[in-house]
């Protein structure tokens, strides 16, 4: 028996629109999850909650491209986006408080510790 997570598929183009729709409907950010898919892509999951009910957005994100930050709309996202930058080597564009890959990591660390398919960390 396989468990199934009901998610709404979104793209970089529709991300902000979906976030605004959820915020307007009274939802708040529970957290985000980054899942390593293959050598080139990760899944970014956005978990929102309202009255303890969860909804999930799913965005496929190429590792080589910058992901749009939602921290300008949802400030609470800044910490988890910085964490994903450290662990998966992704870069978020427009992060309101950007630790530039050094939230947890030291400068001499050049790998992306949470990627099964490692990539070299790049400047954000």
């Amino acid at each position, binding site marked *: *028996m396989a468990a199934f*997570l009901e998610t709404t598929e979104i793209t970089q183009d529709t991300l902000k629109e979906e976030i605004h729709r959820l915020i307007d409907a009274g939802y708040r950010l*529970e957290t985000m999850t980054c899942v390593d898919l293959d050598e080139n892509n990760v899944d970014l999951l956005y978990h929102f909650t309202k009255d303890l009910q969860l909804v999930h957005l799913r965005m496929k994100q190429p590792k080589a491209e910058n992901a749009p930050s939602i921290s300008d709309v949802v400030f609470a996202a800044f910490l988890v986006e910085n964490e994903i930058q450290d662990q998966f080597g992704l870069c978020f564009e427009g992060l309101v408080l950007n630790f530039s890959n050094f939230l947890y990591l030291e400068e001499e660390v050049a790998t992306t510790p949470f990627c099964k398919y490692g990539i070299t960390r790049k400047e954000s």
Partner: protein
Amino acid sequence: MAKTVIPFGPQHPVLPEPIHLSLTVEDEIVTEAIPALGYVHRGLEKLCDIRDIHHMIQIVERVCGICSKIHAMCYCQGIEEMMGVEVPDRAQYLRVIWSELHRVHSHLLWLGLFADAFGFESLFYQFWRIRERVMDINEATTGNRVIVSVNVIGGVRRDLTPDQIRWILSELDIVERETRELESTILDDYTVRKRTVGKGMLTRDQALALGAVGPTLRGSGVKEDARQLGYAAFKDLDFEPIVEQDGDSYARNRVRFRETLQSINLVRQALRKLPEGEIATKVKGFPEGEHTSRVEQPRGELFYYFKADGTKHLDRLRIRTPTFANIPPLAAMLPGIELADVPVVVLSIDPCISCTER
């Protein structure tokens, strides 16, 4: 007025948590607080690559010692739901009993630390003295005081005897009586009020917008507690979230004090209703698919995300702990307060940084 940047932490006499805050201060008033983490990151989520789903229980228990039982419950619950495992009723009640005992000792620990933060040493000792009785219950019923390790996928590994139940009930009477004896001090004392009332304000709208959880959220007037989801045996117990309206450090203090007494009551309810039967179901196979699991820790709502592919290892395990959610609200609480109040306000969210970094 000249601005000064003052480093607060990662080591501080009243804050035994390795977080650093860069505080911009003008005339002794904090105008900006930038948090910095990274002192205790252990990469525990990543261990799911090399530890199987059963070994991961011991790993998640080490995300946080104080909430170890509740981490394990959240993890096991998620795996059980993915695999369609039916957990026996007695095990569900036992999970509630040990998790609420954890909440009692966590809140008593925090109440002591909070008293210590504003220099009330004798009150600190009193709360920690009472807490020892709960730690003794943990030790007598599980073999360990802090990391009790009673959860397994499918149930629990220990049972309670009728003698132990009677003893726990009598100990809880003492814990409740002695905690109530300190009520007027921790809630009404001049020093406590002077240091906490109106300090570290977080309005209801800010709490919601910034994603606050637990007593930090409920202290700002939001009636939300993951125990309302009715997981384990909570669906069968009389439970209403504790809410305070003022959104300051004092309100968060009141929530935790009242929750301590509420948890004692929940343990009593669960012990009195404890059904007979098995304490675990045998589990075969491995989970597959994606799932989430949530429970209420002493510090707030805990969130687990699982991705599994039917092998003995999880593909991805994501843990969002309550302090992780409460750091953005903390950054909003600090501007506007006096520098001297920073330790008290930081402690008012009950920070656990090793949880946050995992």
